[in-house]
Structure formats: structure tokens, C-alpha cells
């Protein structure tokens, strides 16, 4: 689950025909939801795209599309799943358009501001390099599972996968990242 809640489903009624109509969510609710989710979503988008500037743009586009979607949600997790699904689809579309699927630049997200200790900087750089060598879907699965604490079912819902296929995918992605991080050699112990 996304840190603390459980997924069920989202009832979608399509996109609002009249854009001048007010959004389904009022301003106060939106702002509170934004404060809770924007930073985590931005980090997810940076990991997916490998580009901070692009992540900035996609963040705003994601929230706009989220507001325009005439959907009703049973709870916070539904909202959050919908938000991440929009972000995932946007990042996927951009990646296809830019034909950048082969590799993601790491230069833009490796930078850690001065003041951090050298060990932390090195760990972050290693991690970013290792992540950049994974497939975009593997990055998304690992980030949702371990950074967002999403359940298998939620991850499958966000990424448009069958829940049954997620377990082996997560296993393979995790194995690959562990090997790339150099902490667990293939077939070895930590």
C-alpha cells in the first residue's frame, strides 16, 4: 500500500466537457492533497525521466490532468493511485516521443548539494547510475514499492499491469538493482 492505505478501484466518469466548469476538487482539498503528494511525485518523475526540468513540467501537467479528470475517489489512496497513473502515462508518452528509452541521463539528478558528506554523495551517485541502467518499468516498480511503499496491487494498477505478473517482475528488478549496486553478487550473499 502507499505507505498506509489500501487500494480498491477508481470510478471514472470521463473528462469534463466544459472546461469552465469548476474542478471536481475544491481549492482547499487540492492544496492539502498537493502538499502531501507533490514532493514524492516529483521524486518519482525524476527517477522515471532522469531529468529534473522535465519532471518539473510533468509535475504540473500531472496535477492539471488530475484536476480535469471528472473522477470520484473513495479515499486518499484512490486519489494517489490516479495521480501516479497519470504521471506514469505522461512520462511514458514523453519517453516515447523523445526516443530516450535506451538510457536515461544521470548527470542531472546525481548532483547533491554541498554540505552533504562524501559518503552520502557517493551512495546517491552509485544509486542513480544503477537505477539509470534499469528499464523504465523496473525503475517505476522499485520506486513505487520501496520509496512509496505501494502494494503489489497498487503498483499493478498504477503501471497497468496484471497483479499476478508483478511479483516476478519485482523480483527480477530487485535482483538486477542489487547486482548493479554491487552489494549482492549474483548467487552470493550480502
Amino acid at each position, binding site marked *: 500500500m502507499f505507505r498506509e492505505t489500501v487500494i480498491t478501484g477508481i470510478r471514472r466518469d470521463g473528462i469534463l466537457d*466544459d*472546461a*469552465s466548469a469548476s*474542478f471536481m476538487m475544491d*481549492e482547499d482539498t*487540492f*492544496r492539502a492533497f*498537493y*502538499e502531501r503528494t*507533490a*514532493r*514524492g511525485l*516529483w*521524486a518519482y518523475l*525524476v*527517477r522515471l525521466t532522469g531529468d529534473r526540468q522535465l519532471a*518539473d513540467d510533468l*509535475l*504540473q501537467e500531472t*496535477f*492539471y490532468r488530475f*484536476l*480535469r479528470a471528472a473522477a470520484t475517489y473513495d479515499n486518499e489512496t484512490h486519489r494517489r493511485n490516479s495521480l501516479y497513473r497519470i504521471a506514469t502515462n505522461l512520462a511514458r508518452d514523453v519517453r516515447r516521443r523523445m526516443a530516450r528509452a535506451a538510457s536515461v541521463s544521470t548527470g542531472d539528478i546525481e548532483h*547533491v*548539494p554541498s554540505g552533504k558528506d562524501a559518503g*552520502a554523495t557517493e*551512495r*546517491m551517485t552509485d*544509486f*542513480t547510475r*544503477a*537505477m539509470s541502467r534499469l528499464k523504465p518499468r523496473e525503475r517505476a516498480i*522499485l*520506486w513505487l*514499492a*520501496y*520509496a512509496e*511503499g505501494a502494494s503489489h496491487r497498487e503498483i499493478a494498477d498504477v503501471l497497468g499491469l496484471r497483479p499476478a505478473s508483478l*511479483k*516476478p517482475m*519485482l*523480483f527480477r528488478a*530487485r*535482483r538486477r*538493482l*542489487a547486482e548493479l*549496486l554491487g*552489494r*549482492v553478487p549474483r*548467487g552470493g*550473499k*550480502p
Partner: protein
Amino acid sequence: MKPVDCEWESEVLAAVLQNRWPERVEAGLRMHVAVCEICADVVAVAGAVDHAREEMRARAVVPDSGRVWWLAQMRARREATQAAGRPITAAQVLALACAIGLLGACFGATSAWFQSALRWTASSLAAMKFQALLPFAAGFVAEHGALLLGMAAIVLVVPAAVYLTMLRE
């Protein structure tokens, strides 16, 4: 078939995410992780991802929520205005052309006046000596050339405008 999950996986993950790993977990769990490839991967990967998450969230600079809301409102209004200001759709053009054609056909088929006028026009054209009209036409063009040019421009511009509208649709 090689297993892809472990019954202790969730416990190990919880320990990592709650910063209890490795000091504040039972010795049994540590021993299990030492021999379980899956749980060892979970420790390595979940710890690294969680650390990266904390780093990134700490330095994330996202726009103010009020600004995002305001920009979304502005954009929604702009899109609504654009949608309302769109002149005609391709379907509307087609429907109008069909309606005019149908009305003309009905009128032509049912009106005795129209049919007699059509016959008179045809017989008049057949009897007309076009060469005799040439001096008259030349004089008309010389006198009303600008008007004719304007009409010709309208005849060209209107279909072009309809075409461009359909293209945009």
C-alpha cells in the same frame, strides 16, 4: 521453479523502512537474511531506494500549491474559451452542405415554376449569340474591375477558410 518471494520479506522490508535494520531486529531475522537471497536483495535495494527517496524529497523544490491551482484554473478557462470560439466543425460543414443539396433537390423536383424557368434558361442560352456580348462584357470589366476582383477573392477565400477549419478540426 525458483521462488520469487519469501515469507519473511515483508518483515525484513518493514525493518529496513523503519530504520530498525540491522541493529534493532531479532538475531533470527538477521541470520535468515544472511542465507536468503531474496531478503538480502530486499535489504540492499529497499535501503538504497529509501535513502534516495529521503535525499530527493529533502531537496525537492515544487511550485506553490496555490500557484498550481491558479494556473490550472487559467488553463481550463483558456481551453474552454478556445473550444467555444471554434467556428464550425467539419461535421457541421458536411451537414449544412447535405441540407442545402436536399432542399435544392426537393425544390427542383416539386416546383413547376422552377422547371419552366430552367427550360426557358436552357432555350435562351441555346439561342444566344455569345460573340455579340463580348463588347458589353469588356466594358463591364473595365468599369467594375475592382468589384469583380473582390468577388473572385471571396469565392477563393471562403472555400479556403472552410478547408482550414476542417483541417484544424
